[in-house]
């Protein structure tokens, strides 16, 4: 199989097991984002693919070739680091051409490739500058440029945007996505930022404690999170979790402190099998609504739910309510009402077709 594959990879640092056992296959020219909290093993995974870290056990294949014990330079990869890792003593052109010069490519070809990459990244005017004379965003582009000129089989990104300010980060995100389309190469991208993951990835790999929690398209992981970790990690603001119990013979509703929500038939059918068990109800902030906005729609899947609002954060398109349901703190994202009408405690609506249920013990989705 082409692409990149990790086969039963285990990584230990001394007695500490960082990756208990991991298998993952990434298809050719796929853009995969590995996301997870810090210390989840995502960077270690990337560094093992790069060959900067040895695996303790298992195999790594790149482009169908077993590269497990090959040094980085024989893996046909390019990598962009969080700190950009530019060579401070070389100018931009020198940085970008370094790999090609080492490979002994003819001068004309090197110049042509650097020129093309510089054009693509709008760096043409800066080729003679040293990294210290560039802004953060420009350094980031040089780091990208350095990997582009390589024309490697696989591109690895280790949190490349986390040192940039928010505005630049979002424009670089777009550029990276465009770049991926242009280059049509396998790209593996590590980040702790779920928005980067959601916006750029063909598929997202969500990791926690060295274990892959879920692999899927952005829509998959958002709509059908496999467990509470994934559900809480993907989505912003993150999902609210409320302890509850299933009601009725056919698990028609979930009831907890301060709320009772009917369940969609599909979910109820699944929940029935686990009836009697305690559950966690997962409510995404964006599935709350102001009552007035839904008034009159007859076939509504919305049910009433009481929120004790303590603070409303107005962010323009909507507002975030920091509130309580029963004793539990929740966040709700609702339409911004007229300014004269501050959001207050009272009845709100929740889209019951979007209720998630998790097993309270295992955390797995029902």
């Amino acid at each position: 199989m082409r692409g990149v594959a990790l086969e039963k990879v285990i990584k230990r640092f001394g007695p500490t097991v960082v990756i208990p056992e991991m298998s993952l296959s990434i298809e050719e020219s796929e853009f995969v984002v590995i996301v997870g909290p810090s210390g989840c093993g995502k960077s270690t995974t990337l560094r093992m693919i790069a060959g900067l870290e040895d695996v303790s056990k298992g195999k790594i294949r790149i482009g169908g070739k077993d590269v497990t014990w090959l040094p980085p330079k024989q893996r046909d990869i390019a990598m962009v680091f969080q700190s950009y890792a530019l060579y401070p003593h070389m100018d931009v052109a020198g940085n970008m051409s370094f790999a090609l010069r080492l490979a002994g490519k003819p001068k004309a070809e090197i110049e042509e490739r650097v020129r093309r990459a510089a054009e693509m990244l709008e760096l043409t005017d800066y080729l003679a500058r040293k990294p210290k004379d560039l802004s953060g965003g420009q350094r980031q582009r040089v780091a990208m440029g350095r990997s582009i000129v390589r024309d490697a089989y696989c591109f690895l990104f280790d949190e490349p945007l986390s040192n940039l300010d928010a505005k630049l980060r979002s424009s670089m995100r777009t550029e990276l996505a465009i770049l991926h389309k242009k280059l049509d190469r396998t790209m593996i991208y590590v980040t702790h930022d779920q928005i980067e993951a959601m916006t750029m990835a063909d598929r997202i790999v969500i990791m926690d404690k060295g274990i892959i929690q879920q692999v899927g398209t952005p829509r998959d992981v958002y709509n059908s999170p496999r467990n509470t970790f994934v559900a809480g990690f993907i989505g912003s603001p993150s999902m609210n979790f409320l302890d509850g119990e299933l009601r009725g013979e056919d698990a028609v509703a979930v009831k907890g402190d301060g709320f009772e929500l009917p369940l969609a038939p599909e979910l109820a059918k699944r929940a029935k099998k686990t009836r009697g068990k305690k559950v966690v109800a997962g409510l995404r902030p964006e599935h709350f609504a102001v009552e007035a906005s839904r008034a009159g729609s007859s076939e509504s899947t919305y049910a009433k739910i009481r929120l004790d609002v303590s603070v409303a954060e107005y962010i323009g398109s909507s507002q975030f309510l920091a509130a309580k349901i029963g004793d539990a703190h929740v966040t709700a994202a609702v339409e911004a009402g007229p300014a004269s009408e501050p959001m207050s405690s009272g009845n709100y609506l929740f889209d019951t077709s979007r209720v998630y249920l998790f097993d309270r013990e295992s955390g797995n989705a029902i």
Partner: protein
Amino acid sequence: MPLSDSTDGEQDDSGRPGFNIRSLNPYLFIFPAVLVMAGGLVYPVIDAFYLSFFDWKIGMPFDTAPFVGLSHFKRMIMDADVWESIWVTIRFGFWTILIEMVLGISLALLLEKPIRGASVFRTIFILPLMVSPVVVGLIWRYLFDARIGWINYYIGKIGIEPQVWLGDAELAFFAIVFTDIWQWTPFIFIIVIAGLQALPREVLEASKIDGANWWQHILLVKLPMIKSIILIALLMRLIDVFRALEVMYILTGGGPGRATELLSLHIYNRAFDTQQLGYASAISVLLILLVFGLSFAILVFTDPLKEKSDI
């Protein structure tokens, strides 16, 4: 606010623009250090310069010493002994610094990795730096001793004739070069290893991914990145070569003949053996100018402090 250009919006205490009693603070804090420097370094230099205009000998009250103007400097230009010791100093500096640099940098590159035992070896290795120069001189004088020295004993074991290390011009020169290398290679080593260990890990990894082999990794990435540190070490060693005195004084005293008489030792001998304090001062002015000129040239041509901001 047309007058105030202070960025923090603070008003001057005195009410006068451009003056703030607080702006004196930095000068107050460095004043003691400046005082020590001035007393310990600047004054002797100026005094040496002053003395060089007088024909003052030891034991003679200074006010009876005749003023001779620039005649010491004229004499110096024609003085073959001075030129010979400058030549000895240059040869000595060339060999010691060259070998110390190569050895120190190589060892630093080898011992930089956190391999087992490296830290122990690193510690042992810098011990010579902690030994006082006088002690170094004494130790090596015994080691090089023709009759009771260990060196002759051990080369005898492998079948080499005993040598009169400190009595032969070539061998004595070798001995002071060797001793200097023994004492000062650790200095280069410690500075370079500190520089290497401060290099950002990701840049070194990037070079591996870019395909650099071992040599390219060192020559094209690592060493250029610590260039400024290497240059500073080089500069300090160069200045030290002109200051080196104690070890050679004890080891060879400049002999046999003038074979190991470095410029500093020559000045010392002039001043305290032949008692020509005035003339010795004139030569030391030359020494100061040489050191100053060399340091200046290195700083101008390489500008290590500016380059440092690269990293």
